[in-house]
């Protein structure tokens, strides 16, 4: 194969290494952001995306008022970060293209790895499937059932695992393998 990262020009290896390091940094902070805003458990993800909309009743026939006493402590309670349908539309619109570009960039790296064709195809499929799972989980959690939060978690972990596999193989083949130039 003409494109083989093991035997690529050092400038290409350096470029790929820079790309992986940069994406790795963003993935690391992405994980921190998830921890801060949505959490890593199905319950916390469901609370973020399902929100009160899951139990939303039809509008009442006439406008009704419900009153309850509040204390200052109630105002200070930690608010659960929620993403409603409008915000999720916006998030999907801006995140999915970026995820696609990242999957494409990592897919180009995979194409230059010395791997059996099936493994390479599987890895590229995983790179693209992860964001699909991520957002499918968010929408299903919102529209169908909070139980689908597990799909979002699976998508997030798949993204991290796929990146780690690609980064490890690429660094090994470019800089450590005996067969490299």
């Amino acid at each position, binding site marked *: 194969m003409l494109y083989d990262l093991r035997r690529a020009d050092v400038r290409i290896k350096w470029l790929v290494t820079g790309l992986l390091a940069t994406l790795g940094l963003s993935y690391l902070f992405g994980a921190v952001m998830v921890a*801060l805003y949505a959490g890593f458990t199905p319950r916390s993800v469901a609370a973020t995306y399902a929100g009160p909309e899951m139990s939303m009743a039809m509008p009442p026939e006439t406008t009704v008022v*419900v*009153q309850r*006493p509040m204390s*200052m402590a109630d105002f200070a309670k930690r608010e659960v*970060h929620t993403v409603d349908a409008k*915000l999720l539309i916006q998030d999907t619109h*801006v995140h999915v293209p970026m995820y696609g570009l990242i999957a494409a960039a990592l897919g180009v790296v995979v194409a230059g790895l010395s791997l059996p064709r099936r493994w390479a195809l599987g890895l590229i499929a995983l790179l693209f499937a992860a964001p699909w799972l991520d957002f499918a989980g968010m929408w299903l959690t919102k529209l169908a059932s909070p139980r689908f939060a597990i799909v979002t978690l699976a998508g997030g972990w798949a993204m991290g695992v796929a990146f780690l596999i690609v980064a490890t193989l690429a660094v090994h083949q470019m800089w450590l393998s005996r067969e490299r130039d």
Partner: protein
Amino acid sequence: MNFLIRAAVIAALFHITPVVVLVKRPDAVQALLPGADAYVAREVHLSGTDAHRLHEAVDWSPEDGVLVFYAGSAGSTSVGALEFVRVDTPHGPIEVAVGFTPQGTVRGVVATKATVEMKPWVLEAVAAGLTDHYRGLKPGDAPAAAARIASRVGNLAEYVAQEVDKGVARALAAYGAFYNHVRA
């Protein structure tokens, strides 16, 4: 390749950053309902007709069709009420707290949340006196504080001020139509 780079730049530019708290809710409550020692949350569950009426008036529907007002009192004396209103923008949501006097005029406005990206724009607008221009407004008035500070701030601060104007307009419309006119 050129397309990919352009698409990445566009995606990065429009990437929504997380929401940060500018003023904690208890601090906003104390500022907008000064002296209050008891609070009541008044949840107004809008009928389809009323929700439509509000939407026609200010192009907005509250989350889940429920308006939440917080009334404060000191002993048996009403101190006023406040609302937290969210405005969704292409740069993410911002939240403003709008406080009302017992007479129904705006006592004050506090920007409580914004995205990391918008935070400096909000702070610039507030430093230019944005929220001072809402005091005394009453339901039916059109907030135009953004125009009042336009000559003293940059374009982005003016933009975010227009979004705060929207939030205040929503609060005024909701308060005017539903705070005192629906019985518990």
